């Protein structure tokens, strides 16, 4: 299986990539890690006339702390995230989530920005970004704009990223000390997309939920933030009753596509179960 012919461009800077994108227009696709796009091109699901490879732009890589945020270059790979002591200490949810993606070879190539902007509901970073309340820096010909993860994902393969823009940075507020976290992902085998998964960030205070954020993977055309479940949990204890209610509310927003991973009822039920498990695991890690 070989992709159809295309012209290949390897810009060395964000500016050069933007000019290529401006001149080539709709005929061009951005190439990040290539582990979604190249397989799609082999199958002729995608047939771009031009590929703009972002792999040789050093400014798109790296992880740094800036004020109260961690700033992650869009072309930072999953392996970079997992291996980063900064990510492991400040954003352990991101390291845990990245480690659940695909397999080691794919994690060396696959990037956080590619995963976010591909728009496949099976990708894991969108739900992680929702739970972490991340923002994305989109750079276009007129400069930069910053958009929240919540609202960025519009549908299957559709995000707020415009055709002339590049996702350049992911900016994630560093969670309060003592926050608990968990990404619970049900998958049939290594390398598979989630049947359902839930990402949770949790702050407890005096035995009650002070703040909780829940992101859900692969149970709707986009990753979803479970706002109603969050609201129901906030201010109360985490017990069998509140967990059951949170799972029920998370399930109530599910609209999964049936496939070999399961039918609608099964995937919805698994979303509830992953939500429950992620809340419990996050609670076990939360202090205060």
């Amino acid at each position, binding site marked *: *299986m*070989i*992709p*159809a*012919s*295309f*012209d*290949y461009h*390897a810009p060395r800077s964000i500016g050069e990539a933007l000019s290529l994108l401006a001149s080539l227009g709709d005929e061009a696709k951005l190439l990040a890690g*290539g*582990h979604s796009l*190249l*397989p799609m*091109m*082999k199958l002729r699901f995608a047939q771009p006339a031009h*590929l703009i*490879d972002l*792999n040789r732009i050093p400014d798109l890589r790296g992880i740094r702390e800036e004020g109260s945020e961690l700033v992650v270059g869009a072309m930072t790979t999953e*392996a970079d995230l997992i291996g980063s002591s900064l990510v492991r200490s400040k954003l352990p949810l991101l390291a845990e989530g990245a480690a659940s993606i*695909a*397999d*080691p*070879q*794919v994690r*060396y*190539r696959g990037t956080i920005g590619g995963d976010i902007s591909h728009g496949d509901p099976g990708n894991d970073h969108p739900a992680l970004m929702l739970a972490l309340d991340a923002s994305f820096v989109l750079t276009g010909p007129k400069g930069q704009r910053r958009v929240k993860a919540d609202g960025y994902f519009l549908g299957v393969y559709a995000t707020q990223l415009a055709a002339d823009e590049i996702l350049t940075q992911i900016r994630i507020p560093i969670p309060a000390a003592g926050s608990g976290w968990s990404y619970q992902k049900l998958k049939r085998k*290594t*390398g598979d997309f989630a049947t359902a998964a839930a990402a949770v960030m949790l702050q407890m205070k005096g035995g009650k939920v002070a703040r909780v954020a829940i992101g859900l993977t692969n149970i709707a055309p986009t990753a979803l933030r479970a706002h109603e479940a969050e609201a129901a949990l906030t201010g109360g204890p985490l017990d069998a009753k509140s967990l059951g209610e949170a799972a029920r509310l998370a399930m109530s927003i599910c609209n999964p596509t049936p496939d070999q991973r399961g039918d609608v009822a099964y995937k919805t039920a698994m979303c509830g179960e992953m939500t429950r498990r992620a809340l419990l695991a996050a609670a076990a890690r939360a202090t205060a």
Partner: protein
Amino acid sequence: MAKTHAVSFKLNGKPVAAEVEARELLIYTLREKLALTGAHIGCETSHCGACTVDCNGMSVKSCTVLTVQCDGAEVLTVEGLERAGTLHALQQAFHEEHGLQCGYCTPGMLMRAYRLLQENPNPSEQEIRHGMAGNLCRCTGYQNIVKAVQAAARKLAAAPAAA
């Protein structure tokens, strides 16, 4: 005729060059242009790991990397593991521990295990299984592959110069 690109990189320590179309995948350049048939084509969909090679210190599935992306890279394939006729500790260990039956997945297994041991010279069984999860074997049930990687790790710890 589509436009071609002149690509040069280091392959098993030696400089090589190839003229490729942008759409050419690394596995085809290795096997058909450079006549190194150690890396195998299995699924061609980046699932099975049979085509795994080492590129710039990373294990990659060479069916999902464009050759043009490897310009200037350092690539190591299974053919580059032995030194002057002596098998690499991993190759020897796969032989001794019976880490293969049909052998189709073996070059990919060896190259993935090579990078795993470079990054983690003393992995636990769990770390080996997690670290080798991108390589499928339909014969062995993996048990002897894990044993072989453990045996190679011990051998390399005793004689680190052979890593």
